[in-house]
């Protein structure tokens, strides 16, 4: 069994687009999250760089990123992502739609990274790669794009895992209990349960860190092991969404799995 490049790219695109639809709707449903008085205020964040703060470049960028115009960009990103799911691939319209999602995501990041997370970064990397491949849709470009997305995902898992494995607080389980104890990313019942079952917390934490760091082994193990790695990934991200509220990571990371499947099954 193998995955052809067109199928691999299409699945990456569709899953990532669903994530973009959800995150765009979340912003449009609460426009005040990005207004001038918000914690993501453009009139203040533009002061962080001379290009944004004043002059012709500042005025031009401000016209695009200011409130409420930024909502127009988010809406455009939403429509482009919906069309990517609905329309067939190929042709200039496809390139344009991929470019709009990549550009819309980069505009949000350019505005401020405060309030954004790793899923936004991976979405930008994924759509920029897909757009580059779509501009020059050769067989080699498609293979390069899928390899690149797969390797970025493995780098992400390895980095997150290795920094946890080598962290004293993750290795003794206290970091896991600590994060779960927060209102921001936690779950009160689970935190209390882990707090009274320290040994279980310790081993859950070690298992969680080690499995994250070991994920890149998917590229080296026999192809028959692929489903186990991918099921682990889906369960891991679904758990983080349920327990920590990190819903955007599910789409951003699972979108890279067709690329990983292509690389493993090629």
């Amino acid at each position, binding site marked *: 069994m193998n995955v052809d490049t067109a199928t691999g790219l299409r699945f990456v695109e569709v899953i990532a687009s669903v994530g973009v639809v*959800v995150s765009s709707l*979340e912003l449009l*449903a*609460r426009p005040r*999250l990005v207004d001038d*008085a*918000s*914690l*993501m*205020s453009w*009139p*203040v*964040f533009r002061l962080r760089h001379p290009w944004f703060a004043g002059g012709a470049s500042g005025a031009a960028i401000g016209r695009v990123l200011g409130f409420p115009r930024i909502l127009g960009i988010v809406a455009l990103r939403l429509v482009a992502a919906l069309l990517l799911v609905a329309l067939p691939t190929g042709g200039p319209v496809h390139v344009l739609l991929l470019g709009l999602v990549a550009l819309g995501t*980069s505009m949000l*990041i*350019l505005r401020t*990274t*405060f*309030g*954004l997370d*790793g899923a*936004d*970064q*991976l979405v*930008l*990397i994924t759509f920029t*790669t897909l757009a*580059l*491949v779509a501009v020059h849709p*050769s067989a*080699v*470009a498609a293979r390069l794009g899928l*390899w*690149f997305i797969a*390797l*970025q995902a493995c*780098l*992400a898992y390895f*980095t*997150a895992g290795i920094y*946890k494995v*080598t962290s004293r*607080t*993750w290795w003794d389980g206290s*970091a896991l209990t*600590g*994060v779960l*104890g*927060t*209102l*921001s990313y*936690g779950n*009160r019942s689970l*935190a*209390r349960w882990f707090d009274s079952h320290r040994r279980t917390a310790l081993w859950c934490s070690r298992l969680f860190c080690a499995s994250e760091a070991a994920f890149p082994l998917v590229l080296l193990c026999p192809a028959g092991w692929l489903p186990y790695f991918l099921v682990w990934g889906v369960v891991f991200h679904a758990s983080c*969404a*349920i327990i920590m*509220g990190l*819903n*955007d990571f599910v789409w951003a990371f699972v979108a890279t799995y067709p690329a990983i499947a292509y690389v493993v099954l090629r």
Partner: protein
Amino acid sequence: MDVALGVLLGVWLVVSAVAQLEVIKPGVSRVRRLDLFSLVPQYNFFAPRPGTKDFHLMVRATTSSGEFGRWRELSPLPHRAWWNCLWNPARRPRKALFDLATTLAKESQAVSRTAVQVSVSYLVLLNHVSTAARLQAPARVQFLLAVSNGTCSTEPPRALFISHVHEVER
């Protein structure tokens, strides 16, 4: 064209990998300073030291008598609902407050109390509280960042950073 794309993606991947050393060797990736679009990712999610505290943004303003009123919390962190695994718009302001609080805490240790007032994180918070305080007339406002130890702790939140008093016109 294939070669150009290969070189581009190859360089991007190598730069991304080197940039992950930033956590243990600050300054290793000078590219990040120029990377306004965050094309060079930072993948050390929740590691090596995850946030195990909650931040609370408090504000107080002077009343018509000129005296400061009580501290009140702006947008207290809501408890999450079951559907937040699918739909979670509150994660962005929550993460923004976390990013602002951690940045301001670092900046306040690195620069003087006067200089920190012109940092972007300070100005964002001041701008936010000045609007949220819903002042009816010119008044003075002050904000406070408090930190609590999470839901398992019985300790009360403690002050992490207290701003100067600022005159705000309406």
